[in-house]
Structures are given as C-alpha cells and as structure tokens.
C-alpha cells in the first residue's frame, strides 16, 4: 500500500559521492525519497538530470526504497531517465521498489527505452510535396469529371423516372439557396450599382460624359457584375453548406448507409441540390442585376437624371443579348457551385476537421472555377459577337 504522502511535498534525490564516475565504467546510484507527483516533479527532474550530467556512468540504478508515492508524473521522470541512459548505451534499473509501485512502473514501461515515439515524423520535402499535390490535383480532376458524368446519367434517369425524382427535396433546396438569399442579393446588387455610379461619375463628369454613366453601370451590371455577384454569393453560402451537410453525412456513415441500401447518393442527394442551384443562380442574377441598375439611378438622380431619362439610357445601352448572355452563364456557374459543393462533401475525409476542410475547399474551388468559367464565357461571347 502506498504511504500517505501528506507530509512529503518535496522530493529528495541523493547521489552517493563515490558513484560519480569519470570513465563511464561504474554505475550511478540515485536514491529518490518522498512522493513523485506533478507538484514535486520539476524539482526532482532538475536534481536527477543534474546528477546524470555530472556522471559519465553508462548505467543507472534508482533506489526506490524511500519512494512512497509515484503517479503519472513520476512515471514520466523514470521513463525520461531510462531514455537518457539508453542514449548513453547503458541500462537503468529500479531496485527496492515496493510491489505496488513496481506494478505501476511495469504497466507504463516503454518497450523501446529510447522512446522513438516522441520523435516527429520527418517533414515531407518539396519534391514529395509537389508530387503529392500533383497526384491530388489529378485525383480531383478525375473525380470532378466522374461526378459530371454521374450527374448527366442521374439527370437522364430522372427524365425517364420522373416519379422517383425528388422534386419536393429540390424545391426545398431551391427555397433554401434561392428564396432565402434574395434579400442579401438585392442589397449587394443595389450597393454595387451605387458604388459603380458613384466612383465613375466624378472622372466622367470632368470630361462632360455624365450621360455615359448609365451605359457603363448597366453594361457592367448586366453582363458581368450582376451574374458574377449572385453566383459568388452562392459559392460562399451554398457550396460550403452542401459540402458541410454531405461531409457530415459521409463522416456519420449516412452515405454508406444509402449505398448499402442500393440508393445512389448522386441521384438521391446530389441531383436535387445541383438542379436547385442551377435554377436559383439565374433567378438571383436577375434580382442582383435589377437592383444594380436601380442602385445606379440612386446616384444619377443627384446628377439631374429623371427616372425616364435614366431608363431610356439603359434601354439604349443594354440589349436582350446582353441580358440573356449574362443570365445564361449563371446556369453553368450554378452547376459549378452545386457540383463542387456536393463533390467536396462526398469526398470528405475522416474526423471532424475534415468537414471544415471540405467546406473551405468547396468555396475556394467554386470561386476559382467561376472566375475561370467567366473568362471563358467572355472570350466565347467576343468571338460569337454576343
């Protein structure tokens, strides 16, 4: 039985004078007295390792006859002494330890005294890192193309099995990603229109080109900023939500459960979400564009523009081709947002951190791909004279 350590608040480490060896041939004997616990550990640690440093002895014997208490902290000290001694090529022995303390030491004794488990794995060099990233990139590209194929297949299946298609789920997602995003998209659209007009008015005014401001604002908003703003908002708001939702389902084995029941997660989960976002994106873009144009007027009214005059300018500047061109690409942007969000969710790794990583990567990848796709659309429209 362990003695009451109530009065043993300090550890005593004794090293007999004769045991200090200069040639490493003898054995260093250390006597530990008192209780080894977290409160006394620091003092004991310093005294013990001072003794070790002064000695050249390869072997150490710890006399535990007067050790009346030892908890996890003390076991740590004994393990560290054993590691130090092993590093010198020697051995540590503990003698005169009471049987109960011996049992405690035994169950915590490391198989390898040098404790290699404390050594962190070496850092991956730059070449391996590059290789890993390349492998990852190829894997992601293949997975994206694969998901696109599965989505097309699922869409074909839905066409021929309309009653099995989850229309109710699609409408619920549409409500979540579309309807509930209308207020914020209207606000952003209005502010963008206002800021554009506000920033361009002074320089153009200096050259007497105030009449050009509605044209500039509306062309920018209708062709680019309105659709882009709407889908970027979707990327931030929806892609992350899809990745987190499906990622959590993956971590909790819900996706595996679906597969085990013979239900295709792409048909059941991904298709409704992607279709909902593809439908929501152009609708949100209309709101964003309209409010951007209104925002532009809120500035132009201060420059003496009547609403009729402003509208006339807008109608002269913007054609239906501009409007349709701007809206059309948002369908593709919606596919990117929905597809990437779901893909990242389905490819979520293990552990709670994996869901967060998936959500972050979904947003970043969606935004990058939207901008890239927007550039492609820009070039294509230019050559198609749209």
């Amino acid at each position: 039985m362990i003695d009451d350590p109530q009065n043993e608040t300090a550890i005593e480490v004794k090293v007999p004078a004769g045991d200090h060896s200069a040639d490493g041939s003898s054995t260093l004997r250390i006597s530990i007295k008192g209780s080894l616990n977290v409160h006394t550990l620091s003092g004991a640690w310093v005294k013990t390792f001072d003794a070790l440093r002064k000695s050249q002895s390869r072997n150490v014997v710890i006399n535990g006859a007067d050790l009346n208490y030892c908890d996890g902290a003390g076991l740590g000290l004994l393990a560290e002494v054993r590691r130090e001694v092993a590093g010198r090529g020697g051995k540590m022995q503990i003698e005169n330890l009471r049987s109960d303390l011996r049992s405690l030491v035994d169950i915590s004794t490391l198989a390898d005294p040098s404790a290699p488990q404390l050594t962190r794995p070496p850092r991956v060099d730059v070449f391996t890192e590059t290789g890993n990233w390349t492998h990852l990139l190829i894997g992601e590209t293949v997975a994206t193309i694969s998901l696109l194929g599965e989505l097309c297949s699922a869409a074909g299946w839905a066409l021929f099995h309309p009653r099995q298609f989850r229309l109710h789920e699609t409408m619920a997602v549409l409500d979540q990603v579309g309807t509930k995003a209308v207020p914020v998209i209207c606000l952003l659209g209005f502010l963008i229109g206002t800021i554009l007009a506000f920033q361009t008015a002074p320089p153009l005014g200096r050259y007497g080109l105030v009449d050009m401001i509605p044209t500039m604002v509306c062309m920018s908003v209708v062709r680019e900023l309105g659709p882009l703003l709407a889908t970027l908002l979707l990327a931030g708001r929806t892609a992350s939500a899809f990745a987190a939702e499906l990622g959590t389902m993956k971590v909790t084995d819900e996706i595996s459960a679906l597969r085990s029941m013979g239900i295709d997660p792409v048909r059941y989960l991904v298709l409704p979400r992607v279709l909902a976002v593809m439908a929501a994106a152009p609708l949100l873009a209309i709101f964003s564009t309209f409010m951007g144009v209104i925002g532009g007027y809120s500035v132009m009214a201060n420059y003496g523009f009547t609403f009729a005059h402003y509208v006339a300018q807008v109608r002269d500047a913007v054609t239906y081709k501009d409007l349709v061109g701007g809206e059309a690409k948002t369908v593709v942007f919606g596919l990117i947002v929905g597809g990437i969000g779901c893909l990242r969710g389905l490819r979520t790794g293990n552990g709670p951190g994996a869901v967060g990583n998936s959500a972050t990567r979904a947003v970043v990848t969606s935004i990058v791909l939207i901008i890239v796709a927007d550039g492609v659309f820009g070039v294509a429209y230019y050559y198609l004279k749209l």
Partner: protein
Amino acid sequence: MNAMLRPDEVDQTDSDAHLKVAGLADDAIIKVSDFSAAYGDTIVLHDITFQVNRSEILVIAGDSGSGKTTLLHHMIGLAIPAKGRILIDGDDLSTTPPGTVRDKIMRKFGVSFQSGALFGSMNVLENVSLQLKQFAHLNGTMADMIALTKLQMVGLADSAQRMPAELSGGMQKRVGIARAMALDPMIIFMDEPSAGLDPITSAEMDQLILTLNKLLKTTFVIVSHELTSIFKIAHRVLLLSTEKQTLIAEGEPNELRSHSNDAWVRAFFSGDIPSSKAVSPKGTSSTIGGHDLMPANGNTHH
C-alpha cells in the same frame, strides 16, 4: 477505505475553502442529492440521491435511454440540474461561476467520452499532453514523456505521432482514456469505456481501471451496460430505469443479480431478460416493464 490524501487534496487553498459544503460524508467524494434533470420542460431523471466514495469504482448502468449519460454530463458540469445538488469533493459545479475556482474543480476529474472526443487537429501525443502543458506548468519534454507513459498504459505508445483520424474507434477511445488520466485526477468519469472494443482490449481496459484504482486510489464513475465489465470492476452499481426515470437499485452487482426483489433488476444483471409472458407487463411485484419494487432488502430504491 484508504485514507491516503492525494497531493492536490493536500494543496487545498483557503481561497476555495468557502466552497466546501458542510455535511459531506467523510469518505464521499461525490454526493448527489435530490437530483433531477430535464431537457426543456421534460423531466428525464428525477429525485436521485447517492454518493460515490473515495477510491470506489461506481458503475452507472441502465437500459437504453434511462439517462446514464445525462446523469454523467450533469456530474461533470456540462449541464445544470433542474433540481438538487451535485457536489464534487464538496464543491457544487452548478453554482460555481466560470473562473479559476471552477477550473480548479474541473481539474479534479478527467473525463473519457464515449466517442473518444479527440481533437482532430492534434496528434495522439498532443491530445494527451494538452492538459499537462496547459495546467501542470511542465516543459515540453516532461509533458510529452508523461503523456507517452499514459499511452503505454493503454497500449498505444506506438501510435503517439498518428492523427486521430488514422485510428480506429476503439483506439480513439483508448486515447481518450489516456487523456482523461493525464493529470492523475482524483476522479475519472468514463462513458461506455468498453463499448466498441474487442474482448481482449476490453479486458485490458478493465484491468487498467482496477490497477489505477488500486495503485493510485483513483475514483472511477463509469457508465456502462457491459455485464462482463461490470462484474469484473464495479464495487457498486447504480441502476437507472427508462420506465421509472430514476434510480431503481443500488448495490454490489452480485448482490443485485442474486437477491434483488425486483425481477427486472435480477434479469438485467443476469443478462437473461425473461419473455413478457413469463413476467406480467405492469403493476405487480414481478413486473419487468414497470419495475415495481417489493419492500427491499437494502438494495432497491423506493
């Protein structure tokens, strides 16, 4: 009962002496009195009174949904009782505001959660050494070596540098147990420590609990319904009932299995629930579903 005081008990300062509540039995380290728990307006446990003695291994058992984990969460201060008090070493967590005093109380116990609850961004060694580095004012080497010896105790020293996501569920649970032991707390709470472990590992966990209890006098409060484990380690068992939403039996597991007046209690501990035809559904002394209790021979609650 062994009267050994641990260093952290000896180190009790005057500043938190006011938190000591008179009336705690000499050997009681946890005292739960007239406790009720509720989710919103729904009472899920009511009128529970018991105590846990120092150096005792107490198992909280019961059928699924009986409130075992709810009781545990209240004992470790994660939820506030709807009624009653829970004293940990004389301190009432539910009335102690967040701050240094509460932190000090919290460090008197370690908790091993059912899922392991490891921090996914840290490797196994960092998970176990976290509290040592935060609270014990030990340098990195000391804390790491202590953490490694704890991992050795649960047989996972070789996984020290692995991430939690790379471990199986059972391994994560064992790391969680090592983390709960990190500061050598007075009390270790465990939620289903054996669930999900293979029989050999489960037996090793039981042995570890017995060893720590014997050598370090650690008090264990364990939620479990693994009968093998209960009979091997429990000094005493509390049995909760879904039907009654309260504590229905308390005592040594063998005593409850053999001599309880409640057929359901006997059936629970024999692991052999008789058919509903063999025992009337409700309202009699032999009831299983209703857990009606006969005048007890000291081990059933009224």
